[in-house]
């Protein structure tokens, strides 16, 4: 692309692209130039002056981060002139720095400390009083010690350029300049924790792990983030075997060098108080600690004693692929067919037409190449923050047009073309309008299965504009998000999305919900397919097992739960609870047992958390990423794959003699590799209907930001940082209609009634919610007492 030129750095000849900055060149060839403000992912500020180097014919040393290379340029990074400039800069930077390294969390992993060792002097000419900056309270996640700040402005640039919301700034001037929010305010970006990683000093450190341990006492192990389908690379830090901190790992094709706050701070959940430490069996209502042999014997006995059709198996899509595969293999081996991981899905109408797994439709980096993106029922900013980051890049780099069809407006951190907001039932019609417009655009035939539905809707101008934007774009995509999957008419939404994609040339993609949703499909944890999508005689259409809803509506005698807390993880907590109550025996393989679990379960097999086991997650784009155990679990806790392997032996199943988790993974991988290609394409063959008109207030039960799985629900700092998870949100017109003005004004509680339960909750007026609807997030403490995420709900003062 650009011309190559020759330059000399430290007497080494290099051929480099013209116009690149000197520091990029030196970094690429491994010549280290000290720096504080420069960061490869951020714009160049050149304000710390630490990267000064000697350049031939330049009268003064030049900052390597802001000096473009030129033909014939001669540079010395370690000459006397360069070193003395760096040493002087260091002295200036340390003038106001408190040098409180012994009590600083950054000590031992501090860029300022390292560079002052390497490039600083041993004494300072500055004898006067150092300035002190008052610390700021910027929320539960990031702790500040602003006197240590050297004003590199990385955190400010991060906010503007990556997080897409400027929350931190530099106020005041000269020696009174301070970094902060100016008014007291908690950071609200879902990526805010990254400023901890990029802060070169101890000014911004992780609040939950503050003063826990020193950097050199911790062990670092690479791992994969377990809370969304991005598969972000992380580094787990352990101290004396305990997981005490998580920082970002680097993978340019996946998360670059950023991670979401959820992935950074969820680790606290691992050390929750209700971790189970040994196998337990309930006898006559009293819990008894037992050894593994006894526990597994009784599980095997129980499973052998009942009709396999009376067993229901529910698995968390956060479990590793090894765990999911062994669960599926062992259960199917004893004839159990009722197995599912789609805990929040309620419409399984056309499950046969699903591809091998809900695929993103492209690689994560390809998202940045899109010119038009339609998000259907997705709060991508909270659900997959780093996919949202890629969409943001598409908007910034290609002026991509982002359009949404959703049940509530989203505060995006980039400009969007249009947000089409309506009640959950109405979004089917909105999408149908777009589908109809796309069909007339391409002069195609209406698929028979959709003809009734499409007849009843009109393609309005908004729908036409969306269809045209998708069609006219060079690269376009329709993404189905988490709210679509939860929707009572998911299959209709999916069919309509497929029609739109077909008629506009847009790719159809799924924003899979959990870290291993894709892996669960591959492992065969669905009632109608075995591993690698195999439809054997055992599971073919008439013989397919029960899906989650069927398992819960018609209670099974025995349930096997793999890291599932039914009242939090299932669509309808009330029904799930009834099913657990009605069961003869509930076997829970889980790291945790809260009060509800102790009531519901009869046998608890304590399993390791993601940080304590080796395993593999498959991300939304279908990339397999394996990780190893980083932390030690309590002595009687076992990785779930080992529990299931031994259970397989106790059940007398052949081929359960795996030595390591990699054996399990490799067996599945071989099976998956035989499948030729992944595609989201499907022929519309079934009949798809519009939802029935419903009167009355409708609930929108999107999953709360930090409530998607058992670990994050227990992460105390994250929970404290998001109090809005446990409130009822409705718009001001609805407040009037329901005569709740007084209640809102006095900040008193409202009564929420769904199904047979009533409870009191605080209210938040949010005009981003459509008329006739109320947002009560799923997965939360309060929603665990309510009914389905969608449907009628009553709110009274």
């Amino acid at each position, binding site marked *: 692309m650009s011309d190559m030129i020759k330059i000399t750095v430290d007497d080494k000849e290099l051929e480099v692209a013209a116009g690149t900055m000197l520091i990029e060149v030196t970094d690429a060839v491994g010549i280290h130039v000290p720096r504080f403000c420069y960061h490869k992912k951020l714009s160049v500020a050149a304000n710390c002056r630490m990267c000064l180097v000697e350049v031939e014919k330049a009268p003064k040393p030049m900052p390597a981060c802001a000096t473009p290379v030129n033909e014939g340029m001669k540079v010395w990074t370690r000459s006397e002139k360069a070193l003395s400039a760096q040493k002087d800069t260091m002295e200036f930077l340390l003038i106001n720095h408190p040098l409180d390294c012994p009590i600083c969390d950054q000590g031992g992993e501090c860029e300022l400390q390292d560079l002052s060792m390497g490039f600083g002097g041993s004494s300072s000419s500055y004898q006067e009083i150092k300035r002190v900056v008052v610390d700021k309270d910027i929320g539960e996640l990031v702790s500040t010690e602003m006197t240590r700040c050297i004003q590199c402005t990385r955190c400010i640039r991060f906010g503007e350029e990556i997080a897409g919301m*400027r*929350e*931190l*700034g*530099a*106020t*005041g*001037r000269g020696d009174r300049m301070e970094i902060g929010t*100016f008014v007291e305010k908690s950071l609200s970006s879902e990526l805010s924790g990254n400023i901890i990683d990029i802060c070169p000093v101890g000014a911004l450190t992780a609040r939950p792990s503050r003063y826990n341990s020193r950097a050199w006492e911790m062990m670092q192990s690479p791992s994969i983030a377990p809370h969304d389908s991005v598969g972000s690379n992380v580094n787990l830090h352990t101290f004396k075997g305990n997981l005490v901190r998580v920082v970002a790992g680097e993978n340019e094709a996946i998360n670059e060098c950023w991670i979401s706050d959820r992935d950074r701070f969820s680790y606290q959940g691992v050390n929750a108080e209700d971790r189970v430490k040994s196998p337990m069996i309930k006898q006559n209502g009293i819990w008894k600690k037992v050894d593994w042999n006894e526990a597994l014997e009784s599980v095997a006995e129980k499973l052998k004693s009942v009709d396999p059709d009376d067993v229901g198996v529910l698995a968390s899509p956060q479990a590793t692929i090894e765990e999911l595969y062994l669960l599926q293999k062992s259960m199917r081996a004893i004839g159990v067919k009722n197995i599912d991981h789609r805990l929040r899905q309620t419409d399984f109408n056309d499950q046969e037409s699903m591809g091998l797994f809900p695929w993103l439709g492209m690689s994560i980096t390809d998202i940045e190449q899109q010119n038009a993106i339609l998000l259907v029922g997705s709060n991508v900013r909270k659900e997959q923050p780093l996919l949202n980051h890629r969409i943001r890049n598409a908007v910034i780099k290609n002026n991509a047009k982002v359009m949404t069809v959703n049940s509530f407006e989203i505060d995006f951190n980039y400009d969007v073309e249009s947000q089409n907001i309506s009640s959950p039932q109405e979004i089917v019609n909105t999408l149908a309008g777009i589908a109809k417009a796309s069909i007339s655009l391409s002069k195609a035939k209406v698929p028979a299965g959709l003809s009734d539905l499409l007849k009843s809707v009109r393609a309005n101008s908004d729908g036409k504009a969306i269809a045209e934007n998708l069609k006219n774009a060079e690269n376009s995509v329709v993404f189905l998000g988490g709210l679509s999957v939860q929707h009572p008419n998911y299959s209709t939404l999916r069919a309509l999305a497929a029609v739109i994609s077909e008629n506009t040339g847009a790719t159809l993609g799924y924003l899979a919900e959990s870290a291993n949703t894709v892996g669960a499909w591959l492992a065969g944890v669905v009632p109608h397919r075995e591993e690698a999508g195999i439809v054997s005689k055992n599971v073919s259409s008439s013989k397919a097992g029960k899906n989650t809803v069927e398992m819960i509506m018609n209670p099974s005698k025995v349930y096997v739960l793999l890291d599932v807390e039914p009242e939090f993880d299932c669509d309808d907590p009330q029904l799930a609870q009834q099913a657990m109550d009605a069961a003869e025996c509930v076997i829970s393989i889980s790291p945790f047992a809260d009060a509800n679990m102790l009531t519901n379960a009869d046998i608890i097999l304590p399993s390791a958390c993601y940080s304590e086991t080796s395993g593999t997650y498959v991300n939304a784009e279908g990339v397999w990423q394996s990780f190893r155990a980083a932390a030690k679990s309590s002595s009687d806790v076992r990785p779930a794959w080992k529990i299931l392997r031994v259970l397989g032996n106790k059940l007398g199943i052949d081929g359960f003699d795996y030595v390591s988790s990699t054996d399990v993974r490799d067996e599945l991988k071989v099976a998956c590799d035989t499948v030729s290609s992944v595609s989201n394409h499907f022929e519309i063959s079934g009949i798809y209907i519009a939802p029935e008109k419903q009167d009355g207030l409708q609930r929108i039960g999107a999953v709360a930001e930090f409530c998607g799985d058992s670990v994050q629900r227990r992460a105390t700092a994250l929970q404290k940082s998001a109090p809005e998870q446990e409130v009822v949100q409705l718009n001001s017109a609805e407040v009037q209609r329901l005569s709740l003005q007084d209640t809102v004004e006095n900040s008193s509680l409202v009564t929420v009634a769904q199904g047979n339960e009533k409870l009191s909750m605080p209210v938040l007026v949010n005009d981003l919610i459509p008329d006739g609807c109320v947002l009560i997030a799923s997965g939360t403490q309060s929603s665990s007492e309510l009914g389905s995420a969608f449907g009628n709900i009553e709110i009274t003062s």
Partner: protein
Amino acid sequence: MASTPNVLSKHERDDIDHWLKRYPEDQSQSALLAALRAVMHEDHYLSIEKMDAVADYLSLPKITVYEVASFYSMYEMDEKAAGKNTIAVCTNVSCMLNGSDKIVEHIEEKLGIKMGETTPDGEFFFKIEEECLAACCGAPMMQVNHVYHENLTPEKVDEILESVKTKPSLHKKEANNG
């Protein structure tokens, strides 16, 4: 979110609109200095509420407004500074050599306040001026509101302060008569 009804007065909005016209449409940040000046004219200081309103009006992040407001010494962010008239005496080198200390002392005595304070009747705010106001040839000097006054003596200071004070007292008379 946009529920704050017109925190900015009509006059302030008109003033900002006037400046906005001078810059390209996507460069509303260019009008920020002028917008803050408009608020200063009206309130004599910048409240957080008004700064937030300016941010909303110009579609800028709030912190951007705080940064600019706290950078320039011509903006006051302290409510105490909301005096009708702002006095700023230069105390930099040239003025100091020519007796600015005496001028400061005189004003402090006359108004009964220290630098950085406002008279109890809200008439005068005596600003701490940090930087040279570029009128060294007329040292010692001060700026009252927007006007430079050079070659100061205590008597001249009295005259100037009296002259700016007259207008509000006229208002008062009118008010009493009415």
